[in-house]
């Protein structure tokens, strides 16, 4: 989530003036963008020291936590929006994290690399794991310990009683609404409870 256009695409899913919790907020780029363009407030959650420092420097309130330990710090439905951008794939307990996201936020917005993007499929057909812009790592050193597809996430959301209120793919900064499971390197979902 680095290009200005991608920031805007995600920001468009966030209601004006929303209270936002950004899980795995990195250097706070998205929260800064949301504060500037949509009058949002809230906190980022980050585990990395350098990112925590970067957030504090740019004036983003950040809470240093390991997401694997859950979100006990946050009350039920205490945020309008919980963002989980390019974070889910790094977590061991993906399903629990998704449940926690839905518990804490009214709206959850999730993005992750779509393993079913066609170049990945081709690569697997040739017998090798994909190495692409969205999945830039070799299989033996990837921090992405959970790889899933656009279609997989729909199944997981349904299993947890979560309603998908919007979903689309992203590729090269463009929104992909037609056949996103095949045509997009990144999957984006907006989910709500029940």
């Amino acid at each position: 989530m680095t290009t200005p256009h991608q920031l805007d695409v995600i920001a468009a899913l966030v209601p004006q003036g929303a209270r936002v919790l950004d899980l795995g907020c990195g250097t706070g780029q998205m929260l800064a963008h949301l504060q500037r363009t949509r009058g949002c407030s809230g906190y980022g959650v980050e585990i990395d020291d350098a990112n925590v420092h970067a957030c504090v420097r740019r004036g983003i309130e950040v809470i240093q936590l390991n997401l694997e330990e859950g979100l006990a710090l946050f009350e039920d439905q205490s945020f309008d929006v919980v963002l989980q951008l390019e974070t889910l794939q790094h977590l061991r307990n993906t399903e629990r994290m998704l449940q926690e996201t839905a518990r804490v936020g009214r709206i959850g917005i999730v993005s992750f690399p779509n393993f079913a993007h066609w170049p990945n499929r081709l690569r697997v057909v040739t017998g090798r794991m994909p190495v692409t812009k969205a999945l830039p790592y070799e299989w033996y050193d990837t921090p992405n310990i959970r790889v899933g597809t656009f279609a997989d996430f729909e199944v997981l959301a349904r299993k947890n009683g979560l309603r998908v209120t919007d979903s689309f793919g992203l590729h090269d900064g463009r929104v992909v609404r037609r056949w996103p499971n095949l045509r997009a390197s990144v999957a984006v979902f907006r989910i709500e409870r029940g």
Partner: protein
Amino acid sequence: MGSVGEVTPQQMHFSEPLPLKSGAVLPAYRLVYETYGTLNAQRSNAVLVCHALNASHHVAGTYAGQERSEGWWDNLVGPGKPLDTERFFVIGVNNPGSCFGSTGPTDTHPDTGRAWGADFPVVTVEDWVDAQARLLDALGIERLAAVIGGSLGGMQALSWTLRHPRRVRHCAAIATAPSLSAQNIAFNEVARRAIVTDPDFHGGHFYAHGVLPRRGLRVARMIGHITYLSDDAMEQKFGRELRAAEFGYSTQDIEFQIESYLRYQGDKFSEYFDANTYLLITRALDYFEPAREHGGDLARAFEAARGCGFLVVSFTTDWRFPPARSREIVKALVDNRIAVSYAEVAAPHGHDAFLLDDERYHRVVRAWFDRIET
């Protein structure tokens, strides 16, 4: 980055009695303080530094002609340092009940004409904060840019935002807790019993007997010191290292280096610290519990602090005030939608880390202070 250079403590006398939380009053009293940097014309750049158990108003700089007289937070406070004295006017103040110049148990009781000793009224974190507020009144500072403290100092910093929320814009609470745990109180109680049962204590009126309960103080300090260090740090520094090449098979002599270190710390401490002050300060720690007046609900206690911005820092190896205790504070703030940043620093040193120069810790503190408008 430089030092604030040579500094001189100042004194302020207060004739109006200070009402204490216990119901008692401190009749007239004196506060000793130091300041660094310059108060701006708007008087909007003042930062108060609150001290912990055995520290004082001497936060930064050195005393003329005294070797190794750097203030206790000299690595954090100074020109170009994380708390930059070129931007901020920094105030360090010694709390009443302490033994570094402000009115305390060694002073003369106005009614009896002898030292207060054990009769010095029990002071709390809240009482200290009120005394500090009076010093600010006298200095003409209506509102602090920030208050900062570590450990017991962090409790005072938190208490500022609850007692005088309109007088403080920001609060940095470092390596602290919203209350002591049973284990914390237990350690304090062992320390207090060591002092009180020293035959030289004389019920707290040892001054009249011309003696000091040094043995008790030594043991109290040894116990305290153990809780300031992490298991790993102690292991790394001392391990099972012996003083001699072989065991001496003695039950009384120093065998291990850790024993030697603790005895040294205890000896040093007993030379300069007052026994009654140790009792008072550990009790102030025990009593601190802002949630108590709110049915145990810390979030409700922090409703008062809305409008204030916070930085909370903990250290992963601090087992005295572990990160979980800081997270309780963060949660109470988040529940109130209060601006807070929280850093959990993976420092190896235990509780003492808040006094040490760790880049990950200091750069967050620096970035946070840089954000504060003066």
